[in-house]
């Protein structure tokens, strides 16, 4: 039996400290003022803080504005198809559990077309940082309603206003078996964003982070015009995301025990004010790829051949 720790050892040698430049690729083509820029910068800072070798990191995304992120990150990246980032990421983790994986999706990508994968990924609890960049709209296809578009909001597919209450992704993930890390942050809170992503990286298991961000072109008024007038409450705990005094101008802080699933579920259901910070964490949920790797053997060639021979015996008739 092989232990996962054994697989995860990346040769250390004389490691040089990486600089931010090491994680920069081509210049982003997002609109000016788009929150995606902030998430990219925060990710690059997390990679540098942890001094991860760019060749060992895999960033997987779906389709949409935010899913272009791997193009701008100098790691290995897979820019796949709409809604399917999580199965690809699961495949990477199952094949190569030593590689750190970051998944970047948009709200339509993850919650709508990728909904089935999203809920099942929470249950698999693969060890990955999963960021959903939620701007409450389909932007790349030019402003259609997404599952999180506010009720009554006019879009190109709902010119007289949307018909339904927006989905609450936090309560959805908090209802899934094996949920192990749920946090919410926003791009207009850069320090909070940085610390949330760092916390997500440190967590062992699937770290689900919903990042609220404004689309300056199609949803400029979302989130109270990008946080200016958006009611939030900061969740505070000694092991949670720090609530710096400067944040208190945006909203109140309240004590929250992110280890208590019942308390976390209550917090996740409440949307006004929006809870910001670490909602739930359970570091003891096993990761699916590790369960699978711990059960499989890695026979040498001779043993492999002997075993196949024994299987063949079962079917041998003469």
């Amino acid at each position: 039996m092989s232990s996962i720790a054994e697989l995860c050892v990346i040769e250390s040698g004389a490691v040089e400290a990486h600089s931010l430049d090491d994680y920069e690729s081509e210049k982003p083509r997002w609109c000016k003022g788009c929150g995606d820029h902030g998430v990219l910068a925060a990710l690059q800072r997390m990679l540098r803080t942890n001094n991860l070798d760019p060749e060992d990191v895999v960033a997987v995304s779906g389709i949409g504005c935010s899913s272009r992120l791997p193009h701008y990150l100098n790691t290995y990246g897979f820019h796949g198809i709409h809604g399917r980032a999580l199965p690809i990421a699961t495949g990477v983790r199952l094949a190569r559990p030593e590689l750190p994986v970051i998944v970047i999706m948009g709200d339509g990508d993850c919650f709508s077309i990728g909904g089935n994968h999203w809920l099942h990924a929470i249950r698999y609890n693969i060890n990955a940082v999963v960021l959903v960049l939620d701007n409450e709209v389909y932007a790349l296809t030019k402003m259609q309603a997404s599952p999180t578009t506010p009720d009554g909001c006019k879009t190109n597919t709902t010119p007289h206003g949307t018909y339904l209450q927006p989905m609450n992704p936090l309560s959805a993930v908090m209802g899934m078996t094996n949920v192990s890390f749920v946090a919410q942050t926003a791009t207009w809170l850069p320090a909070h964003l940085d610390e949330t992503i760092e916390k997500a990286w440190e967590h062992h298991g699937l770290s689900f982070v919903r990042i609220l961000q404004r689309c300056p072109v199609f949803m400029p008024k979302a989130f109270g015009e990008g946080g200016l007038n958006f009611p939030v409450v900061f969740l505070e705990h000694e092991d949670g995301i720090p609530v710096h005094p400067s944040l208190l101008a945006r909203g109140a802080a309240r004590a929250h025990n992110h280890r208590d699933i019942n308390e976390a579920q209550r917090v996740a259901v409440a949307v006004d004010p929006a809870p910001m910070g670490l909602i739930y964490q359970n570091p003891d949920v096993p990761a699916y790829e590790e369960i699978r790797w711990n059960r499989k053997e890695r026979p040498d060639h001779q043993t492999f051949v002997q075993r196949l021979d024994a299987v063949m015996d079962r079917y041998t008739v003469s």
Partner: protein
Amino acid sequence: MNRPRIVRLPEHIVEIVSDAGEGAQKAAVAFARLCAKTGNGLWTVEIIPSEIRPPPHTIGSASGNRIRLAERSQVTNAGNLADVVLAFNEMALLSRLEAGSLADDVLVLIDDQWATHDVEEYRLSYREVLDKFRTRGATIIEMPLQEETLRHVEDAEQGKNMFAVGLLCALYSKDVNLLKNVIRGIFEKKTREVIETAVKLAGAGYEYGLAHLEERFEIQAVPTDVPKVAMNGNTALALGAVSAGFEMCSMYPITPATSASHELSDIFEDFGGFVHQAEDEIAAIGVALGASYAGKTALTITSGPGMALKAEFQGLAVMTETPLVIVDVQRGGPSTGLPTKIEQADLLHALYGAPGDAPKVVMAPSTIEECYYILSVARKIAEEFRMLVIVLSDANLATGQQLFDRPDVCETQERPPLDLSPVSPGALPYDWDPTTGLSQRLIPGQPGGMGVTTSLNHDVNGKACYDSESNQRGHAMRSRKLAALQRSLHRPSVYGEPEGDLLLVGWGSTRGAIEEAVDMAREEGYAVSSLNIQFLSPLPPGLHEIFAGFEKIITVELNYSDDWEDPLITKENRRYGQLAWILRAATLLDVDCYAKVPGRPYMPVEIVDEIQRILGDQPAVESLGETLRALKGVS
């Protein structure tokens, strides 16, 4: 009783049918294994209802197996009409007549409990069905299957099948001790009590057979020194996946593909691999693609409806040039169609199902033995050409069993550790060779190889671009790989003479029946040959030259085509069989087709009939055999 007559035969077809859940399948497995152990060649076909426990004593409830046994070790198909049928009730028996499976003079062995059953409806239908069989010329042996079984167990449902297999052991003059060992092997995971009851019942069935059968059969086996294995095509695929060095199979349950993953799930972890059961068909291919991207070429197994769901991911594999293997165990379609029955109707979907121009390799194994070996070839092509390879198996191969030479396990592909050496400066992720379209595969973890793999059109650097030149070039490079592969393929060999009046072209599991039909027709004087095409994309070289040797080319496939005689059908609107479409397009020849959807394999005699219809009675060396004439009304 007088010493029974023993009739020696070169081959026979026997069917065993019961209500679903009564164990005819298990009996057939035991009998087939017994015959295989004595050296008979065989081919078995499962008779499976679409539900788990359909209403009993109805036509739709029939479940069992057809077993074709022969002296020769090589049996390539399920054969023609059955010679013997052992039925647990008259409706199961009738279902086989309605399926067109039984010879007129079939020997029927049937449980006689229905003759005196409390339910009048059963008594009446039993008499009516048996009368029908007698009128057609069948020989009927009624036997107290239920009554005799009840002498040994309290619940006859849990033992009739073993009594029945003992009876067949006597009917075919097999060694009952060997049968008992086979049964012990089959039930090895059961309790000792269950095993010994099964063995006792088989012994009782055998004794009953010896005492009551006036005529018995013997199909001798040709002794051979070459060790043989007997397995179905799905098992062969599973073992083949292990042997080919795959480390992951990602799948979602779907009939008739799933049993391949059952076998694999059971053993794969011992070989350093695992089966991942995904949340849906889309995720199943997505996980496989992710694993392949990360450097471990993976496999996904599905059937038609799953292929449809995987179509977008197929395009992604093609666009990103990520090696990937998909096995499609075809079933009847469209939609849910005939989930447990054979059809070869996913060929065009495999070729063209993904949106955009998505060149990929499509291969089809034609025997169960090839199911074992094909995944090694598929994996090598996928990796060397960075391509998607689709392997089209079918329900006939999946559930049928065949005897073949035991594979040499030493020929398994070694799995070298991933090469994570630094990428040489200036190396590009899509550094296409302009002649072959080939480029090196970079794997996450390789220093210097960082970059995005994208579903967007991209250039040699892997960067997304939107200009016409790079788009044309990307398409050309992905397409070029097919041409490069085609140039490395062998010209397929013709079965029979290289020249003649008619060439039958098939693909996949119809091969055995087609070649047997060719043998039969040539014996009658017809100048007919056949060709099995293993590579459907790219098509193998030499088809033009091969076709030039024949007056007429016709495909024989198990998919739908319009008949010339159908209402409204003209040369302009007729829809052809799927291989015929692609051969017509590739050769500009007027390739015709014999393409039907019976939901079962073709019988060789049906194909002989078609040959005769096309070529007429001209050879007239001698008339086609009696079997063929007897069949006219059925086929």
